[in-house]
């Protein structure tokens, strides 16, 4: 695993340095990384904890705006290359405080009602941003320096996935899953459910804030509209396509979704289908392919509906690739055969 990561980092550093891939592929790789962060962190709340949060785009927005204000107005422009990680870190920290705010109603409210509260949070963030003229209001902020690069995205993605993995395989992560299974029983088994919920929401929103910061400095333009319910829906598709309560699933879901969305671009589809006879291709191109820009915004949510109905487990639902499970946990779960000759102490061998 460490070897894999080191070679990945070397590759990530080499890609922009030697222009191994063109700009388009580099951009795609960065979106995959950002989406992995978003999906894995939303999975913590929606998958492991079993809540249904719609606030993720709102957290992203907070991270994006925080980091942009720092890089464009606070940090000196000539040192930005070095101070960019600080801005990203600050964006995560500020966003995690927002996560704390959303965690508080989760003490009392669960399920559908909490989902509505997170939706309200998303709408509050969006309309707040729209109404503050100092940060561009509904027009947003253009001309953001492009500071996000392949190595940075790779480093943040690996670090955050590692932190989430470690959290999941600790007493806190087990507590999060116990809350999903039976909240009262977990409280009675000594789990401090409020603390666990706060931590899960804060870690999840921290990651969303970092993703928002990286996203803003890649897109170079942000506006409140970028972070609306459609953005949340995209992350939901990644999570449920990949499968709930699975880190590997979220990584796969994010990658598959991002690539699928790219393939559905009119130009990509047109070039993929160009082998078709002109009699077939031309009407197809005129009525379907050229409208894909709009159509894919219907196709992708439709994908969410279909996944929920026909494939609720997703690719990896509640399962995990062995590579993400700590060795400690794999060994602990090894099943030894029953030892013969032990006294029964009243413990029946058959139920």
């Amino acid at each position: 695993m460490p070897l894999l990561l080191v070679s990945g980092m070397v590759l990530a550093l080499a890609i922009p340095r030697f222009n191994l891939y063109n700009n388009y592929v580099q951009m795609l790789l960065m979106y995959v990384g950002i989406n992995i962060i978003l999906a894995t962190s939303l999975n913590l709340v929606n998958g492991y904890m079993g809540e249904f949060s719609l606030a993720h785009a709102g957290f992203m927005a907070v991270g994006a705006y925080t980091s942009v204000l720092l890089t464009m107005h606070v940090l000196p422009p000539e040192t930005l290359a070095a101070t960019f990680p600080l801005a990203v870190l600050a964006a995560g920290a500020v966003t995690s405080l927002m996560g704390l705010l959303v965690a508080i109603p989760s003490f009392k409210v669960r399920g559908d009602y909490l989902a509505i509260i997170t939706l309200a949070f998303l709408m509050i963030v969006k309309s707040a941003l729209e109404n503050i003229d100092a940060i561009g209001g509904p027009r947003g902020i253009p001309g953001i320096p492009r500071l996000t690069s392949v190595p940075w995205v790779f480093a943040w993605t690996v670090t955050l996935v590692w932190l989430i993995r470690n959290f999941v395989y600790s007493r806190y992560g087990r507590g999060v899953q116990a809350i999903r299974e039976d909240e009262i029983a977990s409280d009675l088994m000594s789990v401090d459910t409020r603390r666990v919920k706060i931590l899960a929401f804060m870690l999840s929103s921290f990651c969303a804030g970092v993703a928002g910061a990286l996203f803003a400095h890649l897109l170079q333009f942000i506006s409140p509209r970028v972070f609306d319910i459609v953005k949340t829906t995209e992350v939901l598709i990644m999570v449920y396509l990949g499968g709930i309560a699975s880190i590997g699933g979220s990584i796969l879901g994010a990658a598959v979704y991002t690539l699928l969305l790219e393939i559905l671009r009119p130009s990509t589809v047109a070039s993929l289908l160009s082998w078709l006879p002109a009699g077939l291709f031309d009407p197809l191109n005129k009525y379907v392919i050229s409208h894909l820009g709009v159509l894919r915004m219907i196709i992708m949510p439709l994908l969410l509906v279909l996944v929920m109905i026909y494939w609720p487990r997703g690719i990896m639902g509640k399962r995990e690739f062995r590579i993400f499970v700590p060795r400690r946990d794999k060994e602990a779960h090894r099943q030894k055969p029953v030892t013969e000759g032990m006294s029964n102490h009243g413990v029946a061998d058959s139920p």
Partner: protein
Amino acid sequence: MALLTARNVAHNFGGLRAIDDFNLELSQGELMGLIGPNGAGKTTVFNLITGVYRASEGSIRFRDRELVGRTPHEITALRIARTFQNIRLFRDLSVLDNVRIAHYSQSRYSPVEAMLHAGRFRREEQRIIGHSRDLLAIFKLEHLAAETASSLPYGYQRRLEIARALATRPELLLLDEPAAGMNPAEIDQLMEFILWIRREFQLTVLLIEHQMKLVMGICERIKVLDFGKTLAEGSPAVVRSDPMVLEAYLGEKVAG
């Protein structure tokens, strides 16, 4: 000195007085039964002791600490554990994780240590794994450590629930209808088993049960509840012959 003392405890659900003037003294090491017809308030008493409900009136003290007003996990950390009438395992989690989760309050590491995989986190996790596997071995569940809890047969699930409760290292164990759904032969084994865990884990046990065979067979003292009120209390022999108890159970006065 009594381990658990309840004084004048009352609990209302809206206008309904579910528990009225409930008093209890439980000494260290005792095995006491709580019986009564359906709806008498037995499980409510458990919920009041463990903090699921907050008593409307009265006080419940464990050693010298007041329990009323504390949250369930605080009370569990004070060494009171329970099982449930309808099994409430973490169904989709592994047998081992069910037991590991009950170690929450005994783990000494911070969230930051956990996320950074610090040395103390790794040592604590190993200790918890060791203790959990020991418990599974004692309860003959070690060969099922990786199975999901819901895939176990009913009897194993009951056993796992007790193992999970013991993982919190209780001094007082509350068992809510441990014999539910068991046949007479299994109840015999269960009686032996309850006596064995009491000895082995130095427990004080309070149990709710409808199976008179079990209650009369192992409880040293029995308390009878009906409509939230205490009908009788005493040794099995005393309770068995109490006319009020017979009336509550049989619904009419017994001749003679």
